[in-house]
Structure formats: C-alpha cells, structure tokens
C-alpha cells in the first residue's frame, strides 16, 4: 500500500531561486496494483519516487508505505520497499551474486535465506549464466536484471521502479515488463514511472500524469481515454499536460 498525501519538494538553486520539483502530489496505490507515473523528463517523477523511497525528505506533505511513515519511520519504510532507480547502479568490482547478497545482509537476512532467495530470483530472471561474474563487464540488460534481483532480495511488499526499461533492448525490456506484471499478480504494490506510452497501456492499473511537479490527471487507461476524447495514449498525455506548447516549455527548463 502506498498513500501519498500532498507530497511537496522544493530545492534551492543558486541561479533560479527556489524550485518546486514536486507540488502537492496525492495518490493511493493498493496491493496487487501497478500505479503508472507518466511524465516528461524533469516533470518530477524521480523526485516523487525518491521521496517514497525515503532518499529525500518531503518539504511538506506525507506518505505512508506498507503502513510506515516516510519521515518518522524511514528505516522501516526502506525495509519494506524495493527501489530501482534510474541512477541506482551496481558495484562494478563485485559479482552479481556478491552484490545481491550484500543487500540481503544489509536487510538483516541470514546467509541461508540469502542463498535460497538468490536461487529463486536467478531462475526467474534467467541470471544463472552471469551470476558469478563481475558487474563492470555486464551488458545493460544483465545489469538491470541484477539490479532487480538486488531490489527484491528481501521480498518487499512495495516496489518502486523508476524507468526500469530505459536504454534496454526489446527482449530485455519485455522480460522486465513481464516480471513486473508477475510481481503485481503475487499481490505486491507496484509504482512504475515511465514516459513510454505502450508500457503504460500494457501494464498500469492506475495512471497518474505528472507535469511541472503537479499531478494533472489520474485514472485507469480507459477513464483517461474517455476524459480526453483520444484513443492514443500519447495524445491523451499531450492534452493532459495542456498541449504541445506547454510540454515544450516544460522540457526547456
């Protein structure tokens, strides 16, 4: 369960003054659901997800994940969340197995539990071939699979994926989308950010369109199509953010 309530994050920038990266964002995502956060670059997706993962503290507002408050109970939130960010990399000098095991240890798992869990994840993600090789020699796909295994080593109830298919080949991207869907079917709470429309259509039960730090539209894919009178998700998105001109202006910043 993810409950975000008026999440707001401001940064101080020397040149541009105070910037509001995320502005009063509220939404709910239930177990067994995938919530898709759709937005252009710089719309506030990553900042929102980082606040949910307790990497950043909200300037105001609050959020509860798996029943724990991100501000008051950050360590317990992290123990129940798997966060795969666009910039969460692997230790190049460790093997995939060492990398995953390290995060198991950091989550307080026993060695036996870690071994068993790695075996399961390795089979599901088809990692056996490169499990004992060092991460710095990996292809993007191998890295992403290892990262996912790292994220899920402690079998968290809530999963946060920040553009997990970015820069991947079609085969790996499909495998990862299928894996995320599998997680939902097992009753996990999943939040998934992307700017790829087809993934939203295929994957997400609920979609939130974020623009300039604000949640401008929310609903299921059919609901959004009906509301904006467009079949194509891309057209829905452009209309939701206020037209092409608004989108271009936002991207310039």
């Amino acid at each position: 369960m993810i409950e975000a309530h008026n999440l707001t994050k401001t940064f101080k920038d020397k040149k541009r003054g105070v910037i509001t990266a995320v502005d009063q964002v509220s939404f709910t995502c239930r177990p067994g659901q995938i919530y898709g956060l759709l937005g252009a670059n710089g719309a506030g997706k990553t900042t929102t997800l980082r606040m949910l993962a307790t990497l950043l503290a909200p300037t105001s507002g609050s959020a509860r994940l798996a029943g724990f408050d991100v501000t008051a109970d950050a360590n317990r939130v992290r123990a129940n969340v798997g966060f795969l960010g666009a910039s969460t990399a692997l230790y190049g000098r460790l093997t995939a197995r060492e990398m995953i095991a390290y995060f198991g240890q950091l989550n307080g798992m026993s060695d036996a539990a870690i071994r068993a869990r790695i075996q399961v994840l390795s089979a599901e993600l088809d990692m056996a071939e490169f499990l004992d090789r060092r991460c710095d020699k990996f292809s993007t796909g191998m890295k992403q699979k290892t990262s996912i295994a790292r994220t899920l080593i402690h079998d968290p109830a809530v999963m946060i994926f920040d553009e997990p298919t970015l820069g991947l080949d079609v085969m790996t991207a499909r495998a990862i989308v299928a894996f995320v869907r599998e997680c939902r079917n097992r009753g996990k709470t999943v939040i998934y950010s992307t700017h790829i429309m087809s993934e939203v259509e295929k994957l997400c039960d609920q979609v939130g369109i974020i623009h300039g730090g604000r949640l401008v539209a929310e609903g299921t894919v059919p609901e959004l199509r009906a509301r904006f009178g467009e079949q194509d998700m891309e057209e829905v998105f452009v209309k939701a953010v206020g037209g092409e001109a608004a989108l271009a202006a936002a991207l310039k910043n």
Partner: protein
Amino acid sequence: MNWNNILTVYLKELRDSLRDRRTLMSMIIIPTVVIPLMTFGFGKVMSRIMSQAKEEASAIMIIGGEDSPGIVAALKAEHDSEKNRPVFRIVPAGDYRAAIGDKKIRAAVEIPAGFEAALKTGAAPAVTIFYYEGEIKSSLGQKALENFFTDLRQRTAEARLTERGQPVTLLKPFEVKRRNAAPPEKVGGNLVGGFVPYLIIILCFTGAMYPAMDLTAGEKERGTMETLLCSPVPRVNIVLGKFLMVLTGSISAMVFMLLSMGTTAYIGGAIMTGSGTTMKVGAAAAKTTMDTMPTVDPLGLFGVLAMVLPVAVLFAAVAFTISLFAKSYKEAQSYLAPMMIVIIMPAAMGMLPGIDLNAKLALVPILNLSLVCKEMLSGVWHWDLIAIIFGSSSLYAALALTLAVKMFNREDVMFRA
C-alpha cells in the same frame, strides 16, 4: 549503532577496495616499496656524492704568489696521506670569480706580493680565500685551503718561539676537546626522528585519501551511493563502516611503510645518510652498534604508533567528509590535493631544529604529533604533554567524525546535482 551492520558494510568495502588497483597502490605498494626505496635511495645517492666530492683533489687557483715560490711549491706538494693523493690540483691562474661560479675550480687563494719575504721578517699581509658560499664542493676546497694556511701560521709561530728559546706550549696553554654527550638513541631520534614522523603523517593521509575518494565521491559518480542508501541500514552505520575502511587504508599504509623500512634497515643495515646513521629496530643489531651508531629507541616506535592512531582517525574523517562533498572522483581529488600541503606544512615544521614541544604546541594538530614522535624516538617521554596530545587529537578526530556523519545525513550533499 548496530555493529553487525557496520561490519557488513566494512567487510564489503574491504573486499571491494582490495580489488581496486588505485587503493592497493596507495595502501600497500607505495608504502612498502616506493617510499623506502626513495628514502634509502636518496640517502645512498647523497652519501655517494659526498664521498666522491671528498675523494677528488680540490681544484684551486693561486692568484699572485710569483715571489712566494716556497709556499706555492708547498701547496702543490700538500699530500693527503689517508687517501694517498695530493690535496690540491692547481689550475693556471685566470678569472677566478668566473671559474668558481662555473664550478671549474672549488676555491682560489690570493697570496699578496712579497708574502714569503714578509713572513720571514715579521708581519705578513693577509691571505684571502675565495669560495662559493653554500656550495658543498667549494666549501670543501675552502676548508682545505684554510687548513693549509692555519697550519703554516702555526708552524711559523712555533719556529719563531723555538728561535727565541721559548717553549712551544706558550702558544697552546691547553687543549680543547669535544665529545658527544647525547645517548646514541637521542642522536638517532634527532636525525631519524625528524623525518620518520614526517613520512608517517604523509602516508597516513595518502593512505586515507584514495579509499575516502573511492567510497564517497566515487560511489556518487558511479551511482552506487543511491543504491546503498536504499537499504534499511541507518545512515550512521553506513558512515562508520565506510569510515573504518578509510581508517584501514590510512593505518595499513603507515604500518606497511614502517615494517618495510624496519626490515630494510635491519637486514641490509642500509645506510640512511652519508654520515652513517642507521636505524636499527632489532635489539640484537642495536646491541652491537649501540656505542658507535646512533639508534632509535624501539619502544619509541610503539609510542609513535599509539600517537598516530587518533591522527589517523582525524585524517580518515577529514578526507571522508571532504570527498563526500564532491560529486566526482576528480572533484574530490582537486579538494584533497591542496589538503596535502596543509598537512605537510606542520609535519615539516616538526623537522626544523629548535622547535620543541610545549603545552601550547601540544594543541596544534599534526605539528604536535611530529614533535612528540621526535621526542619519543629519542627516548624522551613527557607524559603530561603526551596526554594532552592524545586527548586533543582524539577530540579533533571525534569532531571530524561527527561532521562526517552530519554530512552523510544531508540530502543536498548526498544528491548534489
């Protein structure tokens, strides 16, 4: 604080660092191989240059002296019986200033007109020696010339006394003797103690520098910092685990250097400086050479290790905090490189003669370590000052470590864009 978590982070960082060539270089290879090689190599080269300079006859120029053939002949004939060679090599007269400046000759002597004749009758005019102040070879030539002429003066005076039927002792009513009163380890402490702490301080910092940069700015740059922050481990445990690794780098650099230097000195009996100062660590070696060779108090070495500990903590915490602030490895390097100078200055000040430890200086970080190490290596133990230094160093270290934890909790530092 959870020691299990700290240990997990530390062991991972240790494994990771041992696979990193840069860290291995700064932690093990430079201290064990490069530093001793450089120190002993430098000493060897220096002593070779010195003995070579002493081996050669001093090239000199005689200005004037046409009417003093006896003295010129004596200069030519002056023989060093120990080395079995003439003392001087006489170069034909010419522009002596240019020749000294160009190092073609070591020195020149001006014998005034009518010197030999005047010497027989009574008061002779002064002889002038020209040399190049501060140049080692030139001062060797100057000393040889001065010895020759003071000898001549002595012999002339003695001859005159004998002529007048007076005893020679009239000229020299008593002898002045000099003898070294310092215990051998005190001499060693002053000679070796000056630069051993200096090396220790520098290695302590360079040993901390690379792991510190790699574990903070390097991780931010590679994106693994954000991954690590996703774990449920409280931040303070992550900081302490990483910090322990940086401290390991610092201490192992120092220990490897001391071990390597000690072994080299012990096995090879290697000569550190031209004057034959050897650092003996083993007791057996020390015993045989105790009365002739200046040695280092082995207990002093243990004292040095104990005193270095809080300073290593301080360095590790400072290097950690500074590089934590940087976005990339390169940026961290550009912050830490100037820090080297800040650290070398007080460390080098400790080598200066005349600066002695007192209660005020005991509060100056780094300089206090440099000074107290010098004392301990020469067997002097000022327990009150040692306590002040240990206490103040520990306090500085604790402050720096607190700052490191504070910085780690600041998201504008951890996610600096």
